[in-house]
Every structure is written in C-alpha cells, then in structure tokens.
C-alpha cells in the first residue's frame, strides 16, 4: 500500500522545480509560521500550505498531515493546559491531577497551546507537501556534497519518510491481524516500533548507499540537473512570502500575547497579511 506521503512523480510545477527552489518556497511558509504567533496569520500560513499542496496534486498528503497535526496539536493543547497555570482567566480551579497535584486550567494556557498546535500543524503540512512533491533522489544529490562521508545522514534526510511510510503500512496491517486474545498494538507501541524499525531500515539503506559508492571522493563532478522553467516562480513566491512576513513584522502586524490575558491583533494589517499568504503561495501555480 502506497503512503500518501511517499514521493509520487507527477508532471506538476512543484515536482519539476529544483530542490533549492522548492525549499525556498515551502521554507518561507515555515519561517512565517515560526515568526508569528497570531492565530490569524498562522491560519493564513496553513491555508497557503494547503493551497500549495492541493495545487501540486498532493491533496492526500495534506489530508494525512492535517490528521496527524490535529492529533499532535490536541496533545500539545492538553499538556500545555496541565503544566501551565499562568493566565488570569481561570476556567477550572484546583483540578486535582495525579502526581502533579491541584492545577488551575486557564483560558490563556489553552490559547497558548492552541497557537503552538497551529504552528505544528503548518510545519507538518509543509513537510508533507515537501515529502510528496520533492524527489528524494534530487535531495540526495544536493545533500551528498554536504554529507559525503555519512550515508546514514543522507538516508535520514532524503529517504526516511518513504522508508517510514512503507514500514507504517506494514505495521498497521500487522496490528490489524492481531488476534483478539493478544494485547492491542496501541499508537504509542506502534510509534515506538516504527521509530526503531525505520532506523534499522535507514541503516540498511545507508549500507546500500555505501555499496553503491556514496562515499567516493573525487571523481568527475555530476552534471547539474537542468533547472526548471518554473524555478523562478517558486523562488519569487518564496521571496514574496518572506517579504510579506518581514513587512508585517516591521508594521507591527500579527501581534499576539496569551498572558496575562489573551491579546490578539485583529487589525487591517494583520488581516491583510493573513490573506496575502495564501494568495502569494498560489502565485507559482497560476498561469500568468
């Protein structure tokens, strides 16, 4: 069973773009997600990544990453609410948690956790689009000069997602085949096994790379991959997104402070920034 996150060769613009161009484009959205904490701006960045993924034909990868991101985000919200008692608006007072003792759950800690979750969601989606649209072979070529002596590093960078995706499909099937008398394979157990399994497999793939001659020094330089005619669009799109973010920061847009009370900028500049991100992100796919 093929994973939605596995790279699929398609005749799309993002798939045709060079690795650096794709990295600038998707990386700029990740940067914006880290630069701003305003939920509206993060929402704009998320919409931008989703639009980019759908336009690139990676709708399934976006859907999978949203599911994972929501699950991970919900965990973050709960944990943050339990471990942080800052904030003036107490929703639950003195809630008794085993081990941790009595805790206050505040609106502000929930809002702070939600912003972290939203950021994680954006990053997860961007990673999923990257994984589904950027050829790992091209990533390997790019990484090789930087990690010539370490096939394992190269494997982890370029092949971990496809390897892990294949392993996850197998592990899920095995989990479904367990008898009713056996202990169920929960998410945590599966995740633990997946990590161990993927690292083992990454070691095997790294050994294969070594056997193919990955660590060979010298030799004639590999000819450069021809740049795509779409590269400028993605570089321009990435730069434009970065400029939008920088201008927003300079203009003081996108302010958000969860403590002591939630303070959220909903001014015109913030709304404009949030709207500009998806519009700018879709530009490389537009026929102009």
């Amino acid at each position, binding site marked *: 069973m*093929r994973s939605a996150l*596995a*790279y*699929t*060769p398609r005749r799309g613009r993002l798939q045709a773009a060079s690795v650096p161009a794709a990295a600038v484009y998707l990386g700029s959205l990740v940067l914006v997600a880290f630069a701003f904490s305003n939920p509206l701006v993060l929402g704009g960045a998320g919409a931008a990544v989703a639009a980019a993924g759908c336009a690139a034909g990676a709708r399934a990868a976006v859907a999978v990453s949203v599911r994972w991101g929501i699950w991970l985000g919900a965990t973050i919200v709960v944990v943050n609410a339990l471990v942080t008692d800052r904030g003036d608006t107490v929703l639950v007072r003195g809630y008794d948690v085993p081990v941790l003792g009595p805790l206050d759950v505040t609106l502000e800690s929930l809002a702070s956790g939600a912003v972290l979750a939203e950021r994680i969601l954006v990053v997860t989606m961007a990673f999923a689009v990257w994984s589904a649209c950027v*050829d*790992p*072979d091209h990533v*390997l070529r790019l990484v*090789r000069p930087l990690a010539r002596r370490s096939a394992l590093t190269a*494997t982890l960078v370029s*092949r971990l997602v*496809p390897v892990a995706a*294949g392993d996850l499909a*197998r*592990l899920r*099937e*095995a*989990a*479904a*085949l*367990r*008898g*009713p*008398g*056996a*202990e169920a*394979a929960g998410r945590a*157990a*599966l995740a*633990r*096994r997946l990590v161990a*399994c993927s690292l083992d*497999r990454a070691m*095997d*793939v*790294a*050994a*294969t*790379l*070594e*056997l*193919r*001659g*990955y*660590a*060979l020094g*010298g*030799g*004639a*330089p*590999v*000819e450069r991959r021809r740049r795509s005619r779409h590269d400028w669009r993605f570089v321009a799109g990435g730069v434009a997104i970065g400029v939008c973010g920088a201008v927003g920061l300079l203009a003081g847009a996108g302010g958000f402070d969860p403590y002591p009370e939630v303070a959220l900028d909903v001014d015109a500049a913030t709304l404009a920034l949030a709207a500009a991100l998806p519009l700018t992100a879709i530009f490389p796919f537009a026929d102009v």
Partner: protein
Amino acid sequence: MSDRVDSGVLAIEDLSYRYPNANHDALGGVTLSIDAGEFVVLAGRSGSGKSTLLRAACGLVPHFHGGEVSGGVEVGGLDARERGPAELAGVVGFVSQEPETQIASTTARAEIGLPLELRGETAARRARAVEEVALALAIPDLLERTTDTLSGGELQRVALAAALVARPAVVLLDEPTSQLDPVAGDELVWLLRRINEQWGTAVILCEHRLERCLSAADRAVAMRDGTIAFDGAPGRFLEWALAADPALATPGARLFDLAGLRPVPVGVRRAREGLRRGRPDTDLARIPASEGWLAPMVQPARGGAKRSAGIRPPAHALTVGDLWVEVGGRDVLRGIELVVDPGERVALMGRNGAGKSTLLRAAAGIVVPVRGRVDASRGCALLSQSPDDFLVHERVAEELPGEAGARALDAVGLAWASDADPRDLSGGERQRLALAIVMAGRGADEGPPGLVCLDEPTRGMDRGRKQELSERFGELAAAGTAIVVATHDVEFAAGFAERAVLLGDGELIADGPIAEVLSGGWYFATEVARILDVDGAITPEQGAALLRSERPVTEGT
C-alpha cells in the same frame, strides 16, 4: 595472503570477526580464495557465517558494522580492511536477501544508474550502461517504474542490475532467490551463470535452496560455526553433506542416497543420466504412481477441485465463492472458488503477483472483495511475511496477556519465554510468537482458530527450521486447524502439504493432491519429480521407494 591472490578476485586469509556486543565470533579463521570467473555456491545453515563472510568481502564488515576483526581480505587487488565499501564498489557488487532495503532511489532507472552517477560517469555513459544491464536482465520495462510499485522479485532484479551495472569483477549474492517464485528463481540463477560465462564475472551465491543453483556452480563452499567446513566440487560437496550435514544435501542427492545409488548427482540432468546408467531398463515415466505399489504414498487431498466446485459439507474452515478482488484498479483475484476443510494442509503456489497474498488477506478479512464471498467463520489467523512486525511490546507476556495469551504461547511451545524480550528470541521463536499473536483468542471454545494462513513463512530458513515449522503445522492440523501456506518453496510444500492450489494471474489454475500438482511440471515441481518424471513421486522418500522397488516395469502399466 595466500599464493592464489594474484589470480584471484577474492582472497581471504585467516579472517576472524566478532560483531559489536556479541559474545562469540561470527567468523573464526576463515581462509578462502576465489578465482576470476568462478561460480561458487556458499552453503550452510542459518547463523553459520555465510552472510557475514559476504559482508566482509564487500567491505561492510567491519567498515559499516564495526566490531573486532583480524586477518586479511583482498578484493580485486584492493585491501578490504583498508578501503571501505564505496572504494570496493568498483570491483565488487553485492545483492542482499531483502530487496526492499537495497533500494535507495525513486525510479528503477535512477537506482540502476546510481553507482555510475556516484562515480561521476557522464549521463551518456550512464544511460548506455543502464540500458545494457536492463536488457541483460530482461527488465527494460521496469526502468521508468517507481521503486515502491515493484514486487519483491522485480526489486531483486533491479538490485542485481545496480550491482552489475559497473561491471564488477565479482558479485556477491545473499539468498537472492528467497522472494522469487520458482520460475523467476531459476531464471535468476541461469542469468547469473550467463553473466559469469559471458562477462567473466565471478559469482559467489549464498543460498539455502541448493537444488536451484548447485548445478550451475563450479565449486561449493560450506560453512559451519563461522568456519569453512568444506570447499570443493559440487559433486564432492553432496557426498560430504550426506555424511556430515544431511540438511545441506539436495533432494536429488538424498533420493540417490536413500536408493543406494552412487555417485550422487548434481542437478536433474546428471541424475537422469545416472539413472539411465544404473537402471538402463527402467522407464520411470511409464509407472503410474496413482496405481499399485506407490499409491499408498500418494495421499489424495481431502479438498481439491471437485470439492471446490460445489458440494459444501458443513463446517468448512474456508469457503471462497466467485471471489473478485481489485487492487489499484486491477483485478488481482478473478472468480476464485475454493473450499478448505478442517485439518487440511494446503500449499498456495503461483508466480510473484499471481494473487496468493491477496487471497490470504481476503480470507483474513482485511481485503474487501468487489464481488463474491469469503467465509472463515471458525476463525482465521493470518501471519504475514514479516513476523517481526507483530512484536511491538517489551515483553512476550505483554504481547499475550491473560489466560488466552498463556494458552496461545503454550500452543506454540513458548510458555517458557513469557518474561523474555521478543527481540531476544531466535528467528524461529519470533515467528512462533507472531503465530501465537495472530491466533490468540480466534478459535471457538478457547481452542485454535479453524484456519491459519501463512504468507511465505520459510524466507531465509534452512532445512532444519523448515522441518520444525512443518512439524508445527502437523500438530495444528491434527487439532483440526486447516493450514494454508502461500509459498514459493516447492520442496517445503512437498514436505508439509497434502494439497496444492496453483494460482495464475489471479485465477485458480490447478487444485489437487500435492503429489499430483508438483509432478509432471517443470517449474512448479520438486527436484525429485523433475528427475523421475513419474506422477506422484515428489519427495526423496517416495522416489527412493520407487527406485528400490523390484517390481518389474512393463509396457503399458
């Protein structure tokens, strides 16, 4: 180093090696020399050191795996202890047992061209080399496919192409046929022989199913406990194996040995020549095994085509009717009709991609048919190809808690291991534990399930472990559990099954007693069946009884 280094492509001198954190040597003082253009089969039981020796010859040991090493390894004139696998890649190619883990690229073309790309070859030279090796291996139609859409057999060929594309002086193969059907396995061995003869490439082939490859070899080397136990011609190897380690002897050799015939033959052709010399008046093909003295040994299957066709007594372990399954827009199963009775032992066979795994998945209910019905109402447990995927907890008892778990452990003989870490168990024990996990709680009245299916359970197993597995199946079947095993291993199927079901391109093309299905053909036939060409004689014991028989063979019988 030895005095054969100059003429050899591989020279190993007093090599000892211990893996990190291991408490014993994997290799102990191995000395071996392989000449240019030799075709060598490396035999030995699981854990005898074969794979480690191959990994030392390509530089993975010790450069990639670490550990303690002493002695010398020279490959193509390069000191493997000084140079890593990348530097040796120009003179040695390596193909491992698991094709999934030896693919590092997105498409087959990129994978095959990768060694040349990493060496800095121009695009034009790469393209030509890839095209030529793809033609040599008959895989040009795979070149544009993404590697994650290739079957195990296809991946194995792509991996072999990647190992050969740089025209190495020696190619090392670690059980390359373990995932291939009999047709693809035979083709691969003869392809290696052709490359060996035409290109002069030395081949070192590590294999458990020796009957597949021994006749193509110039020389056989046997390993035991990390040392070389035998090194010589294939014929002498078989004589040695019969005396020292019968599990390594081929079915043909055991046939001759049991029948008291000498010399033991290497391959079907020499066996037939030997029989003609030894019993010139015997025309074995005229003996109908289903009649007369051989009949008691040729047990009819209790299921079979007639049973499948219609009449359905109650309480079948599996009933499949007009089953159609679609995967990825393609009909993988097409109108399958099959009935399996309680206690029946069935070998499900067919080429890679014939639909065997899909049929088992449908029986286990994890594949939804587009048409037809599957009924395994007495419970169906399916053990897929990788038993380790089932081991997700830290202790055996955590995998199988409570009384149901204890009963399941007891049923597979692992009650003693409840406190062990599953990953500390041996390969065979892990497989039994996985079997217990899929069976636990599935049967009625706390017993075993009505049907147990296994997908390629003998991958990488030596004959001893296969025998153990076969005995385990016998115990389950005696308790009323039907066993259906998808396997490419015809010799294993002949040993454990009473009935064979053959699939071809999603359709059921043969269903009958194992002795009937596995004789009379060429690929889906045991070595004994190919030697004797007598209906029903498929195992060395059956064949030897035939050869020992003093019954006169007459025309028209």
